[in-house]
């Protein structure tokens, strides 16, 4: 059990809302959340459909452990076909919305079609209704959140919404829930806005039960909590510094992509690091970081709650930004900082606030700005094009202005909202786009961490660190230390991480638990909660099935193995400093072995035996 067994189906075109029973057979094969919702998507849409057209669907899905007391058990994912990549999109978010949805009695919501006018979905337990959103269309996520709380006079309402960037067609718009948690990548927010769905507001009071063996479940939950508390990363590093604990570490190992990935070390890294967020500012004596914060049921609490110095140029005339909000996480700090060459912590925090306020992905945004800065310095872009902004590397002013323009979908912001691939193609330099399958890669340079090259190249949602985080092994030694500069053995490592991650992403738990937990820690929690026998081996198999299902969708969408590659820069321009000096990505040495381990043909297609073994039709 643990699943509620109920799916909410919302036909936006006709305004019809219905409930239906969860397909239990699929739940046994795909668990929940990422896996199960992808199965629904694959069964229900043509992979070749227009991501922003009527035919695409958008699914918000919880996992079986979402809403329970299992540590970090509050996750949900947004699954759809991505307008940025043309691949399957699956963006995972924490905060409190996922648990609230489960508490209201729903495993997932499937949105279809497009509403003739802007609407939001209000869910109060088993009651769901579409209400007019004309008054909040054209406003930010933060305004929408406030408006909905006032409109329904319910401070306990949990809200997920899209901002103005999504409405304006920014291709990497996010779905933001609880003000600053994001289903961030691949433009899932763009799809939501294309359906004229402004927000989902949820209040659940039914409770999450259906635990198969409650006593054993609580034992497993408590054992899991203890492992997290006793682990140096999840018990100390993440609560104290958040994911930003990595900034100085990754810079040291020479794998911090800098200035649109021209370099692998950033001289300003320490100024934008997790440590720097603790330092009192000279101006007002307060640190950037106010406190750490936990998502629903999370006993790690890596979240950052920050302020910007009131006297900083970005906010001195804007008191609305003087309060606390979601602060910098590592990927955001990298994209907004190292990749653009900006080392002004407050400017980065401001850009991050704006990303949350109007719902767009700071990784894709920062990487696109970095490409624009390179083009500007090459003389390809002029001030006329940028609206009078000097788009130089290191310019905090340009970063802040760019964020504001993308937020509102104005002027040059429309160009930047295309994402790096389309942006660089438009200005005649496609090679300067640091993307795979159209999605910007994040904060680990594959020249200095070889496994991440294969990770980016083969990720089913375009370049991403959260599909197989081999950094854990290559840099942190979790579960075993491997040499970051060597491609040897990385094919197997990437496959194992991909499969395990797909299972974790389908459970309702947070991937960050896997700094301390293996599937052996997770399986007892799922097994005590859910029908059926759930061991670590079965979870890995479910993960492999999900991976192949996603791959199959992409292949049918027309994204072939030829796109399992990296930007030319990573393959031909060697790292100039640090431990990786002289190295390029050895992708070609890893990819054939990876295909073989996956049971795929030499052009990256799952062979019949693999499909049969995994039960894929």
């Amino acid at each position: 059990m643990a699943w509620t067994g109920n799916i909410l189906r919302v036909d936006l075109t006709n305004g019809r809302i219905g409930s239906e029973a969860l397909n239990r057979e699929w739940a046994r094969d795909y668990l929940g959340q990422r896996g199960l919702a992808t199965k629904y998507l694959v069964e229900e849409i043509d992979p070749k459909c227009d991501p922003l057209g009527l035919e695409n669907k958008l699914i918000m899905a919880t996992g079986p452990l979402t809403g329970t007391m299992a540590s970090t058990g509050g996750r949900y994912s947004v699954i759809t076909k991505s307008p940025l990549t043309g691949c399957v999109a699956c963006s995972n978010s924490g905060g409190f919305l996922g648990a609230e949805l489960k508490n209201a009695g729903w495993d997932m919501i499937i949105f279809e079609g497009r509403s003739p006018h802007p609407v939001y979905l209000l869910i109060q337990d088993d009651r769901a209704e579409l209400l007019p959103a004309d008054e909040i269309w054209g406003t930010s996520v933060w305004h929408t959140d406030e408006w909905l709380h006032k409109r329904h006079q319910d401070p306990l309402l949990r809200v997920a919404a899209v901002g103005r960037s999504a409405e304006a067609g920014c291709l990497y718009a996010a779905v933001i829930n609880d003000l600053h948690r994001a289903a961030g990548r691949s433009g899932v927010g763009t799809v939501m806005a294309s359906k004229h769905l402004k927000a989902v507001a949820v209040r659940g009071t039914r409770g999450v039960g259906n635990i198969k063996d409650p006593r054993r479940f609580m034992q497993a939950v408590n054992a899991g909590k203890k492992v997290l508390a006793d682990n140096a990363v999840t018990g100390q590093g993440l609560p104290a510094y958040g994911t930003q604990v990595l900034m100085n570490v990754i810079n040291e190992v020479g794998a911090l992509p800098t200035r649109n990935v021209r370099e692998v070390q950033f001289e300003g890294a320490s100024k934008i690091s997790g440590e720097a967020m603790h330092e009192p500012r000279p101006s007002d004596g307060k640190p950037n970081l106010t406190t750490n914060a936990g998502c629903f049921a999370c006993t790690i609490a890596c979240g950052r709650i920050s302020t910007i110095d009131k006297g900083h140029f970005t906010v001195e005339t804007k008191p609305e930004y003087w309060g606390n909000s979601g602060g910098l996480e590592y990927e955001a700090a990298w994209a907004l900082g190292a990749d653009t060459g900006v080392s002004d912590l407050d400017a980065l925090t401001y850009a991050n606030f704006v990303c949350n306020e109007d719902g767009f992905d700071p990784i894709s945004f920062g990487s696109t700005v970095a490409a624009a800065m390179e083009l500007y310095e090459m003389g390809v872009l002029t001030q006329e094009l940028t609206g009078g902004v000097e788009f130089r590397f290191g310019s905090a002013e340009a970063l802040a202005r760019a964020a504001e323009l993308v937020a509102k979908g104005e002027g040059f912001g429309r160009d930047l909202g295309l994402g790096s691939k389309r942006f660089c193609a438009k200005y005649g330099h496609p090679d300067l786009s640091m993307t795979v399958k159209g999605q910007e890669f994040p904060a680990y340079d594959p020249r200095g961490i070889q496994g991440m090259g294969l990770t980016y190249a083969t990720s089913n949602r375009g370049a991403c660190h959260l599909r197989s985080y081999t950094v854990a092994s290559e840099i942190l030694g979790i579960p075993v230390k491997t040499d970051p500069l060597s491609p040897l053995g990385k094919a197997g490592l990437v496959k194992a991480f991909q499969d395990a991650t797909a299972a974790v992403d389908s459970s309702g738990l947070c991937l960050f638990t896997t700094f301390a937990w293996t599937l052996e820690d997770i399986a007892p929690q799922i097994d005590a909660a859910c029908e059926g026998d759930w061991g670590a081996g079965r979870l890995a198999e479910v993960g492999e099935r999900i991976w192949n299902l996603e791959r199959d969708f992409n292949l049918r969408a027309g994204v072939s193995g030829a796109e399992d590659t990296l930007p030319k820069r990573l393959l031909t321009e060697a790292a100039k400093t640090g431990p990786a000096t002289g190295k390029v990505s050895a992708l070609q040495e890893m990819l054939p072995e990876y295909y073989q381990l996956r049971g795929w043909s030499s052009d990256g297609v799952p062979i019949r035996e693999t499909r049969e073994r995994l039960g894929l039709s």
Partner: protein
Amino acid sequence: MQRSLNINPAKCTGCLQCELACSYENEALFNPAKSRIRVFTFHQEGRFVPYTCTQCAEAWCMRACPVDAITLNRLTGAKEILEARCVGCKVCTIACPFGTVNYNQTTGKVIKCDLCGGDPACASACPTGAITYVDADQTGYERMRAWAEKTSVGASATA
């Protein structure tokens, strides 16, 4: 010896483990909406504050109850609801100055913290020590200790 819930908001991360533990202990469901302890988020200030019944010695709720459905547990000091006697009139929810007694529309009775009979689930579940269960006469002990620690060596106090 009676013990009290001792809440230190500075340590709270807003994870709601306490609400989950409370609802599970009392309702056999993970349901923050039915928790006797609530965590408040002050977003602008970046603060999280758990809040629940302080078990007043002179309890307004107990005095207000017209049917004597609220009784003192002499062992724990908790003011407990006798469900069988409660008529759901909600007078106690009005009487409580802190709002920590609340009506439960599912059962038609009121609910409040009863210290789980002397082993509060919220305190056991809290991952950061923001909620502890300590000697009722010594709730200031840790704070005194923290101030004492700041005292410079050799300093003498004159009253």
